Every structure is written in C-alpha cells, then in structure tokens.
C-alpha cells in the first residue's frame, strides 16, 4: 500500500517539510464516554472518570487524561498527514505541556509547525525533523503542545549519499 502511494508520487517526504511553515488541520470531537473509557483503562483518576467526583478535584470537572489528549492528537496526525507520508515513526518528544483541561464537547484541531530539519549522518535514506505541534480547542486556545523528533524517509537517497561522501 505504501509503495503504491510512493509510485503515485503523492506521499509527503522529508524534502517536502519546510521549516517555519504552519499547517492547520484535524477535527476531533471529545466525548464524555470516550474520556471515561480511556481513563478507566489507562488513567483511573477521579477527574477523568466521574462527572460528580471530578467537581471536587483540582480540575473542577470532568476532563480528559493528558495521555488521552496525546492519543487523540496522534490520531489527528495519522489522518492529517502521517499516513500519506514517508514517516518512519518518532524517536521521542522533547517536551509535552498540558495548558488547559480538555472538557467533553470540545472539538480539537492541530497546528503543526516544522521547526528544524537535518539529514541523518549515519543513514542517508532518512531525515530528521523537529516540530512544534499544538492542539487547539474550538476557541483557538492551545490546550497542549508537543516538541517531537520525527523520522521521515527521503525522496532523493542516491543524490544525497553521493554528495555526502
């Protein structure tokens, strides 16, 4: 499947990422049911589990687990561009910040800014990209930000390999 997309020339490669360009995409409706379901499995704290009990916590009401927000962002990234790209995963995230509680009924979207690119010194076929990825709520306020280190395949492997040697 990936090779078909590559043959069609429709994939996004490392070369296509442009430092400083801002992309806005994604649409994820946060439901009470999903907040509770995720929290029951992975993060069973009162503020994520029970509307009534959540009122008496620091969150002041039911809100999504921060890791649930990470998972919802990941889904928006897959649908928004990763699955139509040469992405080879990520080595990690330098920093994640949770700025605001994510409440039921909120519609989330993504603001993606590539902040840095470099070719891999050891592997000519891949490139590294850093980004600032922000999750916005329906008011346009940032609820979470990531600074990931991503790996992408390169379109022009041979040319780079030659010039690098």
């Amino acid at each position, binding site marked *: *499947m*990936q090779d078909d997309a590559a043959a069609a020339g429709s994939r996004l490669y490392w070369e296509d990422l442009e430092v400083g360009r801002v992309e806005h995409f994604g649409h994820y409706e946060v439901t009470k049911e999903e907040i509770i379901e995720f929290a029951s*499995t*992975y*993060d*069973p*704290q009162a*503020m994520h589990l029970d509307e009534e009990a959540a009122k008496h916590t*620091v*969150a002041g009401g039911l809100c999504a*687990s*921060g*890791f649930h927000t*990470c*998972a*919802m962002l*990941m*889904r928006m990234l*897959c*649908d928004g561009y*990763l*699955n139509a790209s040469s*992405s*080879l*995963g*990520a*080595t*990690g*995230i*330098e*920093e*994640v*910040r*949770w700025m605001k509680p994510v409440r039921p009924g909120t519609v989330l979207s993504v603001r993606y800014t590539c902040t840095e690119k470099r070719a891999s010194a050891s592997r000519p076929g891949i490139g590294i990209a850093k980004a600032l990825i922000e999750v916005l709520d329906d008011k346009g306020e940032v609820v979470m930000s990531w600074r990931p280190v991503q*790996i992408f395949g390169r379109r022009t492997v041979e040319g780079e390999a030659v010039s690098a040697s």
Partner: protein
Amino acid sequence: MSNYFEDVPLGEEMHLGQHTFTAEEIKAFAVKYDPQYFHLDEAAAKSSLFGGLCASGWHTAAIWIRLTVAYRQRYEAELAKTGVKMAQWGPSPGFKNLKWLKPVFAGDTITFTGRRTEKVDLKSRPHRGIIYALNEGFNQHGEKVFEITSSILVERRQPYQPKDGA
C-alpha cells in the same frame, strides 16, 4: 509517613510494575489512536524499519501512566490507613524527554521503574512544588525501550517563602 512536597524523598527506586503487550491489544490501541501499518498488520510490519508488529509509543506511555497511577493509589491507600492528612497530588504540567528507544514488539514484557530526581519551589504558586521523576521501561532482554521525565504539582505543608524576596 507523609506525601506532602517537603516530605517526599528523592532517589528511591520505585518498582511500578510490568506489562505484557499482546498483538491483539497493540492492534486495538492502534486502530483507535495510531493507525500506522507497523502497529496494525504483522506482515506489513515485518518489512518496516521496526521489523515486526510493535506497540504505538502512546500505548507504551499509556501503560506507564496506568502503572504509575496504580502505584500512587496503593501508596495513598496505605497512607490513609495511618489517618494522616493527605497532600493533594496533581495535576501534571507536562513531561520532558519522552524517548522510544527500541520497539515494543508483540509478546514483549516491559518492566517499569521510576526515581524521583528533583523538587522545584515555585514562586508563582507558593502552595505547590513540582516533583520530577525519571521513569524507564525495560524489555525481557534487559534492554531499555522507554524513558520519560515526568512532573507533577504537589501540595506543600508550608507555603514557599523565597529567602530574600529576589
């Protein structure tokens, strides 16, 4: 025994627990939150950079937070038995240096440990301090696969008073 900011010790190793990642569970998480082929399809994953079906990095992180929450809840339950006043823990402002060092393959058992490394006073929030912890996950071969520096706001017994008002 107390869980107030001032009383939390640094440096002790916390044995958070372990988890075996099954293929079914890896795929169920990925279908919902990280539908990339190396998390969804055994055959396709073999030809990927990872070389086999492996867990979404967020699945690994979710299991780590589950074990961490359970660890804290066990401690708080013990503390509750003593009848002491309990400090409020949370929320977390975020985390740093999350590293997916090696793939977590289907069938792998990951053992998670944590160690509190630093306590930071907050001028802006005198009733809370931040506690940082370095958490790691190791597979059954003893290889480190996961690392995260977590942080959490913890209630203080006494409000923080900067020494010279600087």
